[in-house]
């Protein structure tokens, strides 16, 4: 069930170039998180009104804690990065639909890019069967060790060639002949569009997680919409990333805007 709680910060550390990892005590929330769901996080100080949506990267059911991994891109995430262990934030979670894990799939392809990588960690932990994981970074990787534990094959691609395959994650997928029964992805929109085309060509059903600016986070305000095709191919409607998504069937997404 969705809840609003004050969550105290546990371990909070920098785990990469502009990349932080934060554990939050979240009893009542961790119990039923689905991978791909997110938390709407609000600091209890500062002038900001709107919470920030951040994916749930990992869950520790024993400790009743959840982990978020984030980059500092603006003032909200900057303030977050300054919070200390023991301090509290307000948390609205779990939100969104999450990935629909296909338990019968023999082999899953998991593709992440940049700050779309965090939610795929809990997903990788929970997916049964064989897992081929592709992670694309601009430069130095993060969370790589965490993913190693939950993958059969882990391929890293970096734009600048500082690690692994030099090129985009899609280049790496082609290079290594990625294959599977189902694909799960999260990352920047242009990457998701290319992955969707790739999956369509291969005939692999793909679930992709979108990002959009949010206010309420729970489906009430309609600011976070994306274009989703209706039954009849030509027409589309706006759906809410926060509650109808963030995970959508890649073939339903209209990419023009």
């Amino acid at each position, binding site marked *: 069930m969705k809840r*609003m709680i004050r969550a105290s910060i546990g371990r909070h550390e920098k785990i990469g170039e502009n990349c932080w990892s934060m554990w939050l005590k979240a009893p009542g929330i961790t119990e039923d998180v689905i991978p791909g769901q997110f938390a709407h996080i*609000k600091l209890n100080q500062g002038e900001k009104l709107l919470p920030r949506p951040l994916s749930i990267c990992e869950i520790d059911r024993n400790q009743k804690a959840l982990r978020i991994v984030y980059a500092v891109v603006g003032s909200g995430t900057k303030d977050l990065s300054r919070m200390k262990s023991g301090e509290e934030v307000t948390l609205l979670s779990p939100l969104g639909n999450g990935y629909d894990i296909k338990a019968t799939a023999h082999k899953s392809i998991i593709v992440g890019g940049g700050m779309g990588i965090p939610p795929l960690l809990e997903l990788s932990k929970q997916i049964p069967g064989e897992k081929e994981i592709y992670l694309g970074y601009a430069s130095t990787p993060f969370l790589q060790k965490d993913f190693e534990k939950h993958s059969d094959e882990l391929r890293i691609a970096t734009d600048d060639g500082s690690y692994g395959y030099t090129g985009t994650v899609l280049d790496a997928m082609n290079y290594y002949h990625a294959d599977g029964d189902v694909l799960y992805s999260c990352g920047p929109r242009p990457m998701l569009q290319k992955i969707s085309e790739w999956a369509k060509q291969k005939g692999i059903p793909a679930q992709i997680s979108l990002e959009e*600016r949010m206010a309420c986070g729970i489906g*009430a*305000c309609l*600011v*976070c919409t*994306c274009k989703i095709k209706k039954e009849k191919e030509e027409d589309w409607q706006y759906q809410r990333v926060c509650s109808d998504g963030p995970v959508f069937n890649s073939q339903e997404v209209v990419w023009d*805007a």
Partner: protein
Amino acid sequence: MHNKAVKEPDLSVDLAGVKLKNPIMTASGTFGSGKEYGEYIDLNRLGAIVVKGVSLTPWKGNPTPRVAETYGGMLNAVGLQNPGVEAFIKDDLPFLKQFDTKVIVNVSGKSIEEYCCVAERLADSEVDMLELNISCPNIKEGGITFGIDEKMAAAVVKEVRKRSRQPLMVKLSPNVSDITKIAKVVEEEGADALSLINTLLGMAIDTKSKRPVLGNIMGGLSGPAIKPVALRMVYQVCQTVKIPVVGMGGIMNGHDAAEFILAGANAVAIGTANFTNPCATMDVMEELIHYMREQRMENLEELRNGLII
């Protein structure tokens, strides 16, 4: 003084014949049709739920991004996305009628005729009140153009008043030189109540991409940033008209709500605060009760007549 036992203040209010158990309402467009917030608060405890703008046919709304955070506020450019009045009656109204609260429908249109058709379609529904939205800054035709021109405001109110069965509240735009003029005209044409303010037209630019943040370029500013403007307008309008007034704009806590009622509002609506805290409506109510007890006020009229100039 604050320690003496005081009986619970009477929060009930009569809004143009619609009896609210308390003056806490939701601001249209910020509360969906209630379902989503029902997971966080008891909807029975609200004075009224004002649902998002409803039009005759489904509207798609504006391209994204539709929101930009600003200092103490936010810009939105949803553009009144909604599935139309039929879908509202079929999908949302039955849900809302389960609760012991009043249901007020925010009516949108691009022409007088469209406004009227929505009002007529709702005439034999269980909706308690209509809120005529002549102040949305986010749609090209209709919306705000009705709200900033006295003649157009008069025309639409007159016609909708004739053709609607429920009490009619008219929502005013703050983007005007003199809000009391529009308020007066709207009252004269038969509005039963007024609500204000809708959002102030604003803009934000992302200096990184050098583009407007909003897909629609401009959008409506809401939140505590606009509270002083909203309060001033509510005060001015309450000095001008005799019909009841619902005040809104940046109400975040019970003291903010009390300010609006001191300024003359009969009830208040909570908008942006819901996004900061899904329990905002309940928190505002409790703080308002606490304040009234502290001030030893027994009912809302005492508060509403309490301003000392």
